[in-house]
């Protein structure tokens, strides 16, 4: 079978990867923002959403982006200028780092790390620092409350996120994201090979906990207390205007895209489709499309929750994390571990 093999120098590869990552995040944010935030939400609420800019309003977010760039860059008088200015960048950098290890095909990955999953979960929590900086640096009471809420929430939900992923790691026996995909591709479905074995079948509880924790990590309803427009008027984002606000927006939707990608790698079989040889180089071509479809499916779930549920209160959120999600995740780990040893 003919395999796809292109040899490139190291600097060429690096340049390509940099361009791809720099393009992917705004594109991902645009796609999610348009498809879900604008269209799906509008249809759920029996309205049309944007229809004027471009066919069916597809260019609305580009128009919004241009509008954001034109706006004045406002600093509050009492703000801690450097912290205030740096905060959106920190949030966006944490989003960028998430894409580094996200595998779109056997070789279509920026950097395949042995501890890829560990890396993802570690850099995901970097955004907390940016959010705290934004909350503190704005010198605004609402922003401060939002920052504090975000810190408490993100730390509480980091734990179920990690614990839910551990079930998959036990089953696959590796932390490398690409090897996790391969383990699912080569797995047997009730002794029937060639179909692959997505871990959602055995790790359904883990998948559910992972999605809930991701929802909280993204600070989306029902866990959107850090921004909570009706309570603290946007929380840590309240003083940001123009392109700094755009950074937060891109960070939020870029992270949503990345986490949906990680969820599809861990639980839905990543870039693999049943019926093809996982070793085939063709997956470098069709892998990104397969991943894209899976990511959109997971994102649809995430955003569906977002538009349906009311917001929890801060104490109820912590109770949910510590009393429900973490014990369930631990139970999942125990059961997975015992079965792994026995079977």
């Amino acid at each position, binding site marked *: 079978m003919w395999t796809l093999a292109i040899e490139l120098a190291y600097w060429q590869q690096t340049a390509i990867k940099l361009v791809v990552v720099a393009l992917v995040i705004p594109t991902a944010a645009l796609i999610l923002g348009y498809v879900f935030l604008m269209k799906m*939400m509008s249809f*759920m*609420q*029996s*309205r049309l959403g944007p229809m004027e800019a471009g066919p069916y309003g597809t260019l609305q977010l580009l128009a919004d982006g241009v509008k954001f760039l034109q706006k004045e860059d406002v600093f509050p008088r009492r703000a801690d200028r450097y912290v205030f200015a740096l905060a959106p960048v920190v949030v966006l950098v944490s989003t960028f780092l998430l894409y580094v290890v996200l595998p779109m095909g056997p070789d279509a990955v920026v950097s395949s790390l042995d501890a890829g999953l560990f890396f993802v979960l570690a850099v995901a929590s970097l955004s907390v620092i940016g959010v705290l900086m934004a909350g503190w640096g704005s010198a605004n*009471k*609402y922003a401060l*409350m939002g920052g504090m809420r975000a810190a408490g929430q993100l730390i509480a939900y980091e734990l179920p996120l990690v614990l839910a992923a551990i079930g998959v790691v036990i089953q696959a026996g590796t932390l490398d994201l690409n090897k996790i995909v391969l383990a699912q591709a080569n797995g047997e479905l009730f002794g029937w090979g060639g179909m692959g074995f997505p871990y959602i079948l055995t790790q359904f509880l883990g998948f559910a906990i992972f999605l809930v924790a991701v929802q909280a990590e993204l600070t989306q*309803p*029902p866990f*959107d*207390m850090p921004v*909570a*427009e*009706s*309570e*603290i*008027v946007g929380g840590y984002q309240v003083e940001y205007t123009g392109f700094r606000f755009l950074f937060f927006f891109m960070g939020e939707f870029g992270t949503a895209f990345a986490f949906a990608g990680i969820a599809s790698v861990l639980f839905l079989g990543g870039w693999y489709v049943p019926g093809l040889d996982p070793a085939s180089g063709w997956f470098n071509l069709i892998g990104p499309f397969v991943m894209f479809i899976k990511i959109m499916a997971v994102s649809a779930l995430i955003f569906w929750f977002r*538009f*349906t*549920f*009311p*917001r*929890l*209160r*801060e*104490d*109820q959120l912590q109770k949910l994390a510590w009393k429900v999600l973490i014990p369930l995740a631990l139970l999942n780990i125990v059961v997975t571990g015992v079965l792994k040893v026995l079977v």
Partner: protein
Amino acid sequence: MSVTEREQRAFIAAAAADARVNVELETEGMTLNIGPQHPATHGTLRIIARLDGEQVVAAEPVMGYMHRGYEKLAEVRTYPQVTTLINRIDWLGSFANEVPFILAAEQLMEVEVPPRAAWIRTILFELSRLANIALFLGDMGVQLGALTPVFFAFRDREFVLNQIEAVTGGRFHPNFDRIGGLKDDLPKGWIEETRGVMVKMRTFCDELEDLLMGNEIFEARTRGVGVIPADIALSYGLSGANLRASGVDWDMRRDNPCGLVYDQLDWKVWTHPDGDSFARYWVRLQETREATYMVEQMLDGLPAGPVMAKVPVIIKVPAGEAYVATENPLGVMGYYVVSKGDLGPFRVKIRSASFNNISVTPWVMRGVYVPDVITILASLYFILGDIDR
């Protein structure tokens, strides 16, 4: 030094150390101005909240940012002109604002309204209740973070507004009520259309019962939050659904219909014993549904005849005083009209429901969390124009 003395000294030293630590750890409170520009106050209400972390130690509402002086303005206008002003008090259910004032003027003039006018008046009164409370039912979701219900509310409220517009010509400010009756009769085909709208409104209520009230997060956020016992509710002068949600069975429509035809209808006053935010939402939802049934009954029993009594072209109200209160969408609304026999009233005192309803906030907002402040404000349901007039 005896042992007991040493123990005593150790105890004193430990207590002093504790006290020092406590002073060091004691955090300063924070004063948070919620409003006047805040999305949850849907207007310009300001709440000064003294916070300890996320907990509210004391909250005080500040009103008056939207005071427009309607009571004083009414003194320099003729009676027919006053209705254009008072339309704008509770801008979501405008027609209901006109009715008590007109009733008071009619009482002074001793005018008998033709039966058909009284029935249509009551129909429009209930339609404005639907237009008003439907928005509350969706808006509560927005305040709690659920974006979708409010769009359903705006969508279905539009049908009711269309019906009001078809009769009166005005969607928000009908200015349709006249001393002695109504400006016009119903347009052709209106009765059948309204029946369809009532069915739609009931479907809307069912939808929200599923989407919002049946949601576990909604229950967790509203149950036991902002509990107002019956005696507190009465002593603060709460009225309307806020009072009935505290278990007080009191409704001006049944207890004192004065000129409206509620006593000829078959309907029920809904109460809830809990007095919390959930109860207030529940009572309003039931009342919306009840209102649709009432409108259907009135459409069935609508008598024929004129819609205007014989009144002089230039209206002069004889000297005297009258107070008429009706059960408006937000609660009891009353007008105390003093006439000296002129073209316009000598003095008008307006008793609006939201002013009293919001005055309970300092009592009910002690020790709650910041998100609960929003829940309580949303569930008490005020209109800024109704607070400040």
